[in-house]
């Protein structure tokens, strides 16, 4: 039925981050914010999870936003409109619970902003008052500014170097908002582990429920490998089937940070080798 998954659109969002709209009608039909897909480029490829950034059920497409940092994401960055990926499965994971919220702060860090966007969009559609705080390294790395503006009641952009928006970290801005009397029923934080941990440390002080989206190493995405386990409230959970969203105040952040490094050395060697691999013909 669907032998390959065609890339219908590719757009660079910044020098490292690009968007891909992929034809996958069955996935599009079921996709919800907070869920993810597993993609494999070719028969040599890894199965890599990507959070669903957007979907269009009528068009039958799913959009992912990718940062070229590892072997698979770099290979993916070389593909363009009209190319295909071999495997694309989903939607996986539990959708984020977004209904019934009055006022929510959605925090995105770097690429995490791409994942925070569909959540902000859906919250806005459900009638919530949405504040988006999105942090980037510098002006060149800002993504989705226009899109976020359209769905947020208030958008705050921060950059580490102050080249655009406010200089500083997302946590500082969130702290300012809370101190100024903003009352959030929930904070949703999506980004690098250290950022999510910092947000949780802050919101814990104010006792604001905080949801984070974990993106650990996984293979199948269906609960089979257990590679994506995270410790939540002292219990082992699988990000793929129990998450990827969890109560940020219950996450064992140190364990999560350690596990992130498990395959780092391999990733480095795979990238250094680039395309010139023994016995391998790439896209022959």
């Amino acid at each position, binding site marked *: 039925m669907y032998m390959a998954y065609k890339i219908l659109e590719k757009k660079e969002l910044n020098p490292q981050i690009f968007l891909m709209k992929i034809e996958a009608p069955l996935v599009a039909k079921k996709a919800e914010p907070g869920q993810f897909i597993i993609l494999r480029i070719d028969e*040599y490829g890894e199965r890599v999870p990507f959070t669903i950034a957007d979907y269009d059920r009528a068009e039958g497409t799913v959009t992912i936003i990718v940062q070229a940092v590892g072997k698979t994401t770099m290979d993916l960055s070389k593909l363009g409109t009209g190319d295909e990926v071999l495997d694309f499965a989903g939607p996986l994971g539990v959708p984020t619970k977004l209904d019934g919220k009055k006022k929510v702060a959605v925090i995105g860090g770097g690429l995490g902003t791409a994942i925070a966007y569909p959540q902000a969009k859906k919250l806005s559609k459900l009638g919530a008052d949405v504040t988006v705080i999105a942090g980037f390294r510098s002006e060149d790395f800002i993504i989705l500014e226009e899109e976020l503006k359209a769905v947020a009641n208030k958008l705050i952009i921060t950059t580490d170097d102050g080249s655009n928006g406010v200089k500083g970290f997302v946590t500082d801005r969130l702290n300012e908002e809370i101190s100024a009397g903003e009352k959030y029923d929930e904070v949703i934080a999506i980004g690098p582990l250290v950022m999510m941990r910092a947000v949780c440390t802050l919101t814990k002080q104010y006792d604001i429920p905080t949801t984070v989206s974990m993106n650990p190493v996984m*293979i*199948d995405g269906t609960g*089979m490998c257990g590679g994506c386990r995270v410790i939540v409230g002292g219990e082992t959970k699988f990000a793929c*089937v129990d998450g990827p969203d969890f109560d940020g105040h219950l996450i064992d952040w140190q*364990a999560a940070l350690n596990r992130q490094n498990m395959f780092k050395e391999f990733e480095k060697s*795979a990238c250094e080798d680039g395309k010139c691999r023994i016995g391998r013909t790439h896209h022959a």
Partner: protein
Amino acid sequence: MPNMSLKKNPMPEQAPEIRNKNFLEVSTGYTPAMAMDEAQRCLRCKIKPCVTGCPVGVKIPEFMALVAEGKFEEAYQKITEDNSLPAICGRVCPQESQCESKCVRCAKGEPVAIGRLERFVADYHMNHGSDDVKTAPANGKKVAVVGSGPSGLSAAGDLAKLGYDVTIYEAFHTAGGVLMYGIPEFRLPKDIVQKEIEKLEKMGVKIEKNVIIGKTILVDELFEDYGYDAVYIGSGAGLPSFLKIEGETLNGVYSANEFLTRINLMKGYKFPQYDTPVYVGKDVAVFGGGNVAMDAARSAKRLGAENVYIVYRRGFNELPARAEEIMHAQEEGVQFALLKNPTKFIGDEKGWLCGVELVNMELGEPDESGRRRPAPVEGSEHILGIDTAVIAIGQTPNPLIKQTTEGLETNSRGCIVADENGATTKKMVYAGGDVVTGAATVILAMGAGKKAAAAIDEELKK
């Protein structure tokens, strides 16, 4: 004249010190002469106890007689009357506790090598025969099969033969289930599995990969939106159990599923030709004593580990793995740390595994499974230095279908409740294999698939 040798014809194999460095198949298979000689050890006894030991009732003495006469293709046809995947079963069935355990030759000496002969015949057919399987004319009815492991494949094969329009839905990018992601290449070459699957496709079975039933498509939608008349669930036992001890999220600790999937399905043993890495350190402990544990231990050895230990809480005689796998593991240098149980994993400052605390066990009275219950020996805790751990203590069914299918009853262990024909509590939904029984064997899963196929046919003919 029957061959009265007390011993089986030995299986030609790669030498242990060579094979523990490669992923090629360990056993290279009988020659035709060996097969004919071995088949003559069968006494063709009237009572056929071997057949009662086979979960699918393969007509063993009949196929033995054909092998003895050199009629290998006819022997293949005889086997496939009851078993559609003989090349696989000949390699992975626990014959010593099934057919061969009942062989009358066991009274004095070794049983007839039924498993090896089944494998020989199937391999002979793959190399010499043709796969023009006759299927009944299309009957216009559609059946969806969930999962392409042994249970789903056998159900799909039988239903296709009966003229049904069969589609298998597979969550992964490759069909075959545990035959692809679980059992290693050196025990079950993957091209054999793929040939069996191609045979089904030639019979008209369609395979939809990357579709997760319960997520991408719900069971109810298979009936309502896709127009299936029946659904067979053979989604297996994919959820790994962990030990639930301290340190289980340390780097270097794997579930057997993750470790073996990286190696087998993702071909991590060919990294970096393939992108998926598999980390194996110098000292590896595998926890558990079943076939999966043996597969993990032997894979670790092949990936260059210096010391590989099987850590099992009972004794040698209680190891649940196939006798051949235990023997092969020993020959390949896997060490057995028996009557030991892990109490906690120990990590370094960067979160990497560097050891495990073990406690010695002693065996007490038999428990409900009939095996002697192990109990810890107080004060016997000691540390084993390891940098890789693989947890192979079992799997339970994946909950995705259960969570999204109303009216489908499951038990306290998460297994789908089904009767002996595979009928579940939901209309026209059948289930079988590990998703019903919990983790068991390939042949039992196949048997369940066959029974359910017959029951589905019975019901749809009404």
